[in-house]
């Protein structure tokens, strides 16, 4: 716990005005002769950094939990029709890395029905113990019943951290659990590290801008976070895993949930850029919707898919399912070629884990250039047609 204290008595009016202006969230205001900080404050501490002589961060020591009682890194195993969701195997891989730092076990917690195949999959992907809540009432995802299972798991097993995939069920379940335990939950982490004292260092894009925030939950346990699909990498599955499956009894009251699942319909198979191994991404440098045909042709020639930035979708030039970024999809193809994309942090967050990034942009200073493995400073209207011409010529020999 801490708060920001401003020693306004020492400040001249000009200094006060300068301090007010420096706050990016307009959270500092005049109040009579003094300055106050209102609810807009995001604790970015810019004021503390810029005016240390007047503004101080006042730390108050608070009794936190006994961290030694909370052991193990747990993953919420999300059941799908085909076993566990791939994000679960990725999280188990990351959980193993984190748990190794503190020499603690990896747990999976698996509510659902039927769970046999999924539980074995969790073992193969690195769980030391898989806690299974299997009951027909858990066959469909119902957030109240699943929360009851996780509450039971946390109360009994006391993991120091619990990771969720940032899927629709994960994003509904994690906040419910976090609020029940009044603990911290960090959304859409792109990087996780473990400290010796079991504090989980969570890094995510923040403030909707070109900023990463490093977030810790030091006073409460468990530490909760969500991570999108395709951010981390699953371990190579072990065909002779040593872990064990621990059947758990359905907690009291879990059966009588408030929420009734009436019906589940499968969505028709959709365009899914997250599955593509090659992506050609269109940005604002594309001048006309017609010109997307050229990029589509390139995507096809490379056996990939066409995707785009938020402005492309907002202009109605591309289907929303083809949007890359925080408000669209996270992709991790082997190759992504961005054409006329400037590279906002939201876009970057959705594709920065790609194996090879090639950026075509006329502006050598565009943010995308700092991400790209190959930054091509030039006009996509010259480069792409020349590339397509070569592909057509070259491809002709081979097909």
């Amino acid at each position, binding site marked *: 716990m801490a708060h920001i204290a401003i020693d306004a008595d020492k400040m001249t009016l000009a200094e006060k005005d300068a301090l007010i202006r420096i706050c990016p969230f307009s959270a500092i205001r005049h109040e009579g002769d003094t300055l106050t900080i209102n609810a807009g404050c995001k604790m970015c501490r810019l004021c503390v950094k810029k005016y240390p002589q007047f503004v101080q961060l006042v730390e108050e020591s608070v009794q936190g939990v006994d961290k030694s009682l909370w052991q193990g890194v747990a993953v919420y195993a999300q059941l799908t029709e085909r076993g566990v969701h791939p994000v679960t195997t990725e999280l188990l891989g990351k959980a193993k890395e984190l748990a190794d730092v503190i020499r603690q076990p990896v747990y999976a917690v698996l509510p659902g029905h039927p769970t046999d195949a999924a539980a074995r999959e969790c073992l193969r992907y690195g769980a030391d113990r898989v806690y299974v809540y299997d009951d027909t009432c858990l066959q469909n*995802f119902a957030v109240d019943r699943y929360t009851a299972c996780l509450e039971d798991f946390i109360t009994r097993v006391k993991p120091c951290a619990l990771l969720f995939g940032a899927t629709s069920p994960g994003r509904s379940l994690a906040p419910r659990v976090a609020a029940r335990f009044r603990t911290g939950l960090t959304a859409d982490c792109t990087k996780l590290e473990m400290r010796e004292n079991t504090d989980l260092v969570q890094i995510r894009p923040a403030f909707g801008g*070109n900023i990463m925030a490093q977030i810790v939950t030091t006073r409460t346990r468990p530490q909760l976070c969500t991570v999108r699909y395709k951010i981390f990498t699953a371990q190579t599955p072990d065909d002779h895993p040593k872990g064990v499956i621990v059947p758990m009894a359905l907690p009291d009251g879990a059966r009588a949930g408030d929420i009734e699942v009436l019906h589940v319909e499968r969505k028709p198979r959709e365009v899914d850029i997250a599955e593509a191994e090659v992506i050609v991404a269109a940005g604002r440098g594309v001048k006309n919707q017609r010109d997307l045909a050229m990029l589509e042709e390139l995507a096809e020639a490379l056996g990939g898919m066409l995707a785009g930035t938020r402005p492309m979708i907002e202009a109605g030039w591309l289907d929303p399912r083809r949007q890359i970024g925080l408000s669209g999809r996270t992709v991790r193809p082997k190759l992504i070629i961005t054409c006329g994309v400037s590279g906002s942090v939201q876009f970057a967050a959705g594709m920065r884990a790609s194996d090879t990034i090639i950026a075509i942009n006329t502006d050598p200073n565009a943010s995308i250039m700092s991400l790209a493995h190959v930054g091509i400073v030039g006009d996509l209207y010259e480069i792409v047609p020349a590339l397509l011409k070569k592909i057509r010529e070259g491809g002709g020999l081979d097909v």
Partner: protein
Amino acid sequence: MNILVFIKQVPDTTSVEVDPVTGVLKRDGVASKLNPYDLFALEQALTLRGDGNVHVLTMGPPQAEQAVREAIYMGADGGTILSDRKFAGADVLATSMTLAAGVRRLGGYDLILCGKQTTDGDTAQVGPETAEHLGIPHAANVLEITDLSDGHVTVRVNMDESIEMLRLPLPCLLTMDKDVNTPRLPSYKRKLAGTGTVDILSLKDFDDRDETRYGLSGSPTQVERVFPPENHTEQVVWDGEHLGERLYDYLKERKFVRGGV
């Protein structure tokens, strides 16, 4: 049907940057707007209102009145801002505690609607956490409300690979998916008429005045530092002539295109 709609004022820009040398935030000209996702929740509320009341609730600085007014010009009956110095620096948990305390203070609602996320925080967590504090059920990513009768609501929710149809008892909280309706425009007439009142509530108005539950004190997560995104190390920049041809050779070498031998 009395409906509460959670809204948030967000920066009308995404141009926040960090100075790579000093590590401090740079942002100029702070224009604000109503979080675009909230418009779908508000539209849904106005459609369902009947002879009831639509009230918007936000936590923020007093300047958030602008966003509340915009909601009123769209058709909301009134709004409340939860504003107090003690709410500063709130994370998801503290924000949801504050909203829950505000909801308890206001009372008398059948349904709470909110947008699925905000454009600045992007967490999509505040709605479900608030529902938990209030002890009411929630459904996230609601595509459609298909029935509202007998003290229950039936909704279709977006679950990535499937669509679930759920029935929840009232009161409950729903987060509306985007593009589920076409939000109406603010009415100039309502603006001229000065319709609707905006109240401000602070900590002293809450039943639970325990300061350690709100703002920075009530936030289990701490932002240790902010920094610009790190970049790849191995990078090359090409410029000049024959870039298309060079790119072809690069792609062929890495077996992305089949090419002549």
